[in-house]
């Protein structure tokens, strides 16, 4: 156990936590008499500085990670680094959009909790050990429950937080239960040992215990990424939480959770050079072991993708169809988030140990996260002006604020996957990766379903845009938008357009870690 090494590896988390404490100190000690606006701005700026410091720390990492007894606990570089960068960038953007909000009188606490939750996200992105994974997930989740409840004057906010908390607690219990089974099957909490152990667990087919353990784990993680049928909390929480908290849940939490899913899928595959089925066994060539060929149960290899496919299909169908019938834009976004999780899960189900799959998924989740934050930013502005997030609150938006309407247009079309916006390339890369990994009928049929469902999704995105652009306005008074908010929103829209016009830039950036 080398504590110096541990400190170096967790430097980004430390930076965020220090920033959180600094925000609290400044807000509570020096700005007690200051105007709310000043306190919000100060807290947000300090939080962004913390994120930048943490990004610098991520970039500075040189070691392969932190290991105990030769087993990796926290990884550096690769998927982990991209996910950590994503978490930090999206956290910073969320904080910038906080600047003109007034839902709370305690901006210091809000920012501090946000930063601590983000540090949980960093831990999840890097974790390679079941216990560390669990701690990271709880660190993130508890932060999110608090953030959801932050609209203290709104009954909806409290209701949403309570539901989220109860659902989350139950899921965490499932997850921990699943982890304990995995530990029992493999005798280790280290992810690669766990995966290896499950292959050895039984000589005769997959044990029901392993299946149950995997289902329990997927239930716990399915809750985090809001995949059907573990999605029930999402619409209520998205609707009730303060807009910045909802944006944070929809983006940062998703990035970290999907990074974890990538890690698990990757670990399940990466140490095997090749495998093929033979009479109920899988013959595996293991890269590191002395014995070149091992006979194993088909455990992880068949079960893991199968569960992912099931919840992926359920998410795509439930998310897209339920979104069609929504009248609240926040609920609409929640169901659309479920649908997007479904697409990404498809990429995880047909996963390759070559970097291509992981890169396509990261590309998707990062761009999706950014777009969603922008969408919640626009919703936040419209809510403040009209007091509602119903579809009709967007009537005549292009007359009330042409720039805001243009941002909404770009973001929603990108979510629907219209070229040349970045959402198109995200879908294109993801589906291409699925098809390049899985041959045969099923991958093709599932991608066809995903494409058909994307076409359905265009309908409900256009429902909002139709109100913003085509249908007659009820109220034509201009909406005032805080200049910083507008700047951030325009920057997000510009990023969505530019990343779509030059898709290679982001691809290269992801591949560079």
């Amino acid at each position: 156990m080398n504590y110096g090494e541990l400190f170096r590896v967790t430097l980004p988390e430390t930076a965020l936590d220090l920033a959180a404490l600094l925000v609290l100190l400044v807000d509570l000690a020096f700005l007690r008499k200051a105007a709310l606006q000043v306190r919000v701005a100060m807290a947000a700026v300090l939080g962004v500085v913390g994120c930048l410091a943490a990004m610098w720390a991520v970039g500075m990492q040189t070691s392969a990670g932190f290991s105990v007894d030769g087993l990796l606990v926290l990884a550096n570089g690769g998927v982990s680094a991209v996910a950590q960068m994503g978490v930090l960038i999206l956290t910073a953007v969320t904080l910038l959009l906080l600047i003109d909000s007034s839902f709370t009188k305690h901006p210091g606490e809000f920012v501090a909790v946000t930063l601590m939750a983000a540090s949980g996200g960093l831990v999840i992105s890097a974790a390679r050990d079941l216990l560390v994974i669990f701690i990271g997930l709880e660190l993130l989740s508890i932060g999110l429950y608090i953030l959801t409840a932050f609209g203290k004057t709104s009954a909806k906010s409290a209701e949403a937080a309570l539901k989220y908390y109860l659902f989350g607690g139950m899921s965490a219990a499932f997850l921990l239960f699943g982890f304990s089974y995995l530990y029992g099957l493999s005798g280790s909490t280290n992810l690669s040992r766990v995966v290896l152990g499950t292959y050895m667990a039984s000589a005769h087919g997959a044990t029901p215990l392993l299946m149950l353990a995997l289902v329990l784990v997927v239930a716990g993680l399915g809750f985090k990424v809001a995949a059907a049928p573990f999605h029930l909390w999402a619409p209520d929480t998205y609707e009730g939480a303060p807009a910045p908290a909802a944006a944070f849940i929809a983006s940062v939490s998703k990035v970290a959770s999907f990074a974890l899913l990538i890690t698990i899928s990757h670990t399940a595959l990466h140490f095997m050079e090749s495998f093929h089925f033979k009479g109920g066994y899988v013959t595996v060539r293991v890269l590191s072991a002395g014995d070149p060929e091992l006979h194993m149960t088909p455990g992880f290899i068949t079960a893991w993708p199968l569960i992912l496919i099931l919840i992926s299909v359920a998410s795509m169908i439930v998310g897209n169809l339920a979104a069609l019938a929504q009248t609240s834009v926040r609920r609409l976004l929640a169901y659309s988030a479920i649908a997007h999780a479904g697409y990404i899960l498809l990429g995880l189900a047909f996963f390759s140990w070559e970097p291509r799959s992981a890169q396509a998924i990261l590309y998707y989740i990062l761009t999706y996260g950014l777009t969603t934050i922008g969408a919640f930013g626009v919703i936040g502005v419209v809510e403040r002006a009209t007091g509602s997030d119903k579809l009709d609150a967007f009537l005549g938006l292009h007359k009330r604020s042409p720039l805001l309407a243009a941002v909404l247009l770009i973001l929603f079309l990108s979510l629907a996957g219209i070229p040349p916006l970045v959402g198109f390339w995200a879908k294109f890369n993801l589906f291409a990766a699925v098809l390049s990994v899985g041959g045969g009928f099923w991958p093709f049929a599932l991608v066809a379903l995903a494409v058909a469902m994307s076409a359905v999704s265009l309908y409900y995105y256009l429902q909002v845009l139709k109100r913003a652009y085509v249908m007659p306005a009820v109220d034509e008074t201009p909406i005032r938008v805080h200049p910083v908010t507008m700047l951030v929103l325009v920057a997000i829209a510009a990023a969505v357009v530019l990343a779509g016009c030059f898709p290679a830039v982001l691809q290269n950036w992801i591949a560079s870690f």
Partner: protein
Amino acid sequence: MMQGTNGFAFQTAASGITQILWLIPAIPMVAAGVIALLKQPRRKLAATLAIGSLAFSLLIALAAFGHVLSGWTSGHAVRETANFTWLQFGTSTVDLGWVLDPLSALMLVMVTFVGLLIFIYSTGYMAHDENFTRFFCFLSLFAGAMLGVVIANSLLLLFMCWELVGLTSYLLIGFWYQRPSAAAAAKKAFLTTRVGDIFFLLGIVWLFAQTGTLLFYNGGAGGIEQTALNGLLAAPAALGLSAATVIGLLIFAGAAGKSGQLPLHVWLPDAMEGPTPVSALIHAATMVAAGVYLVARVYPLMQAGMPAGGTTTALTVVTWVGAATAVFAALIAVAQNDIKRILAYSTVSQLGYMMAGLGLGGVAVGMFHLITHAFFKALLFMGAGSVIHGVHEEQDVRKMGGLRKAMPLTFATYAIGMLALSGFPIIFSGFWSKDGILEAAKDAHFSKGPFWLLVFGAVLTALYMTRQVSYVFFGKWRGHGHAHESPKVMTTPLAILAFFAIALGVIGTPAWPWFRSFLEGHAAAVEFGKFGESEFLVLLLTSTVIVLFGIGFGWLLYGSKSPVPEERDVLEKAAPPVWAALRDRLYVDEFYGVTFIAFYKWWAKVADWLDRRVWGGIVVLVIWAFSRLAHFDRFFDNEWVNGGFDKGCEELSSGGGLLARVQSGRTQTYLRLLAVAVVVLAVILIWSSRP
């Protein structure tokens, strides 16, 4: 003929000027974007931005040209590229980039220079138009896109700019969209060129499939460099043709659409509905020449596998199409009465000459005519604009006359343009560039047909230009009101262009073939002895006879008498049916009307019927099913999951405290469902993986 084969070694490392070459198209495009945001009354700012940005581009273009020139004088051919990966899927990448070589450098200077003069001219011509700012926005966008076509080192980037150019052409032809004829002409231009573009796109896709790259030059790995060409030659396509030939022909189809070659020429004469500066810039000097430039750009592909002294299938097609277009359009031009339409058909005809020049004599021959033509045809169009401006928007040449006195400056410059176009010997640039084409045609081995077609075309060119000038500038004034000379801002560009219409000939004479040497990358020697060679003298004599015969015949028919508008044309009296056919443009439009357009109308009706009766029903059915499903889904989520327990609670309890119970009750339902989901998943999984 092949560039650089017997010339200098290529210098390919990208220099500083190449790194910033992208600024040349980018600046006018940014200017277009800014002008688009301006309000209508900001005329002066719009014009300043457009002209300023193009002037800036001209400066960079001159610097780039200077760089190429200095490389050439110090003994190495410059071909510098800057490429970057635009997107990546799997192992294939799509690269974009730009190239600086003699070909692009020459075109850059020509486009920016002629463009700048026409921009300045436009401030006078469009002075009274209320949509002045919109006009300059479109013009700037056009200039940016056209310059993008010129510098593109990737077929894809070229195609993008190509389509942008087509879009601006559409917007500018239909600039006076209130006139139905302008709107129709714009639509026609867009759709007709699109036919060629489909083939072009097919060629691009095919080339990418065969070579895996769309770059022209990439240090030996480009799509038109030797390695790729060898592969293309070896790949069979169909009918015994190699992939190289078929791809070359597909790309030529795109070029034919843009450059108004047979049978896709029909849009160009109608395009004269646009403002005259547009006709000069887009439909005479630059855009229509883009097709010729494209063929010159992919020339290594066109001539791939050429035997020594022979030719290739692709180049033979280019030659015949060009020669046929040259004569076809010249014939029609003889019987037109609209001053701009005559010039339009003349442009089609001259583009045919350029194509034939490319097919017969190589890049230098075709490109030299392109450059000289750009100057004198821009001059003629702007002169025509000046005339139209001076005679109060009249365009029928029969209703003009005697303008040489009222508009002396316009007359002098127009006469220079006319003599250059007719190819008047020695003095004018048009003579030298057309002479190069005729010389190459005379030497062609596969057939003498193109030579005779081109000679006939040359006679007709001199004839219709003499007819036009006689009608417009000689005889008696037959219009209404008083003709007046145009303002300085319009006549000055005319004078500058007139100067170049003469002076440009110097760089392309047989004695000092600077132009060819520069393009092909070898040293140019001055040999005045060439003028004395019998071969040259024979050709000089032939050309002179042809031109003088054309001009003399025209003068005899039209110059000596002052025609009356109502009276029939002299030639019409001689052969009425032939004249009628020519006047009605040889019925090509009518032919398309009863064949392609009639077919599409019928097909549209069939599709409409299928859409309404067959597909529509299916769509309605699917929509209905989906909306039912969606409602069920919402019902399931909201009513059954959320509301089911609510109802139960409502019935069981009453009074206060209901809300709290409802909330906890709903979450319980959620959690119950979560447990059910876990059980169901586990059962499915365990069942599916049983041994």
